[in-house]
């Protein structure tokens, strides 16, 4: 089996893309879940503000999502640019 340098670099880039997106998905997934749990708690405490609380939850989740999107960008860069 002839494994050349360029082949090895490509293989490492593919592996890196998988690990980047895989590990990068853990944090936002857990964080957004906790945000939703706390939003439910807040709505339970104060049902009249349900609309406002849902909006706040979505804003918080969008911010938490950003690291997941960074991972996605890095993974796509590793796949298509490197």
């Amino acid at each position, binding site marked *: 089996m002839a494994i050349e340098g360029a082949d090895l670099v490509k293989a490492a880039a593919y592996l890196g893309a998988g690990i980047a997106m895989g590990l990068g998905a853990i944090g936002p997934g857990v964080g957004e879940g906790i945000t939703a749990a706390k939003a439910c*708690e807040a709505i339970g405490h104060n049902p009249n503000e349900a609309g406002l609380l849902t909006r706040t*939850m979505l804003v918080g989740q969008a911010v938490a999502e950003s690291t997941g999107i960074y*991972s996605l960008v890095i993974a796509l860069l590793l796949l298509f640019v490197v």
Partner: protein
Amino acid sequence: MDMSPETIVAMAAYSGAGICIGFGAIGAAVGEGYTAAEANVAVSRNTEISGDIFKNMLVGQAVAESASIFALVVAILLLFMDFHGAPLIKAAALTGSGLCMGLGALGSGIGSGIPGGQACFGIARQPAAMNRLTTNMLIGSAVCQTPAIFSMVVALLLLFLDFSAMPFQPGWAALIGAGLSTGLASIGSGYGGGTVAGASCEGVARQPLSVGPVTTTMLVGQAVAQTPAIFGLLISFILIFRTVPATESLAPAMALFSAGLCTGLGGIGPGVGNGEAGGGAVRWVARNSAMAADLMRVMLVGQAVSQSTAIYAMVISLVLIFVM
């Protein structure tokens, strides 16, 4: 040292069996430990009904450890099946099989211990609701076994299918990746499903009259928390059944391995997060049943957003499989 394919396949079978039963037993032991710890707290709070708490714990444990019995069955098959004359690629299939079942049983084992513990604690708090608590515990534990069943399906496919037509070079990576994809993703779904079921037992103990909406919310929350495991199963099936052209280079093989790893790892976080979201909703449906519909809507929106990173991971996996 010269090793024949037969030796390598046997080594893979034995190490796969070890990984499988090892992770499976750890999962069952952690789950059992959580249940027993909560039961001890419960007994110390309400000593008079210690017999009932103990019986509930026993029944819960009998159902909760189904996942580790799946792992035992796969491990025994790996140890005692006859692989004489199998091609070298079977070694990768057997490693993947052991990894998949072991990791899947780990998540389900830990997850299904949580409703057991919360139900024991709930019985101490609200002995009148004992039957309802046991029911919710058993439904919750049974749903927690779903990711372990997905893992067992993939593990048995890897064990029994004939891969001699698959070329070794990218094939080994596809088969190990298939095992990792469902196995790792099942950790999140198993644990997440357990969080929801535990919260439902806590909620019923707090407010026994809310059992109807609590159980409905629990089932919906648990069902959504299984989605990452279903993504893992999908990628595993593609990796197992797609015909790959033979190659000399490493890159295509690494793309397939990485595809499995990506969806697997990416499923852990959303699975746990969906469990947290579902648990939060169930807990507050119990306290405020009038808001059940609103809370369910917020839970589903939150779970959908939390799911998005698992979908990114699956997209990267699909790109790795079909484009690279």
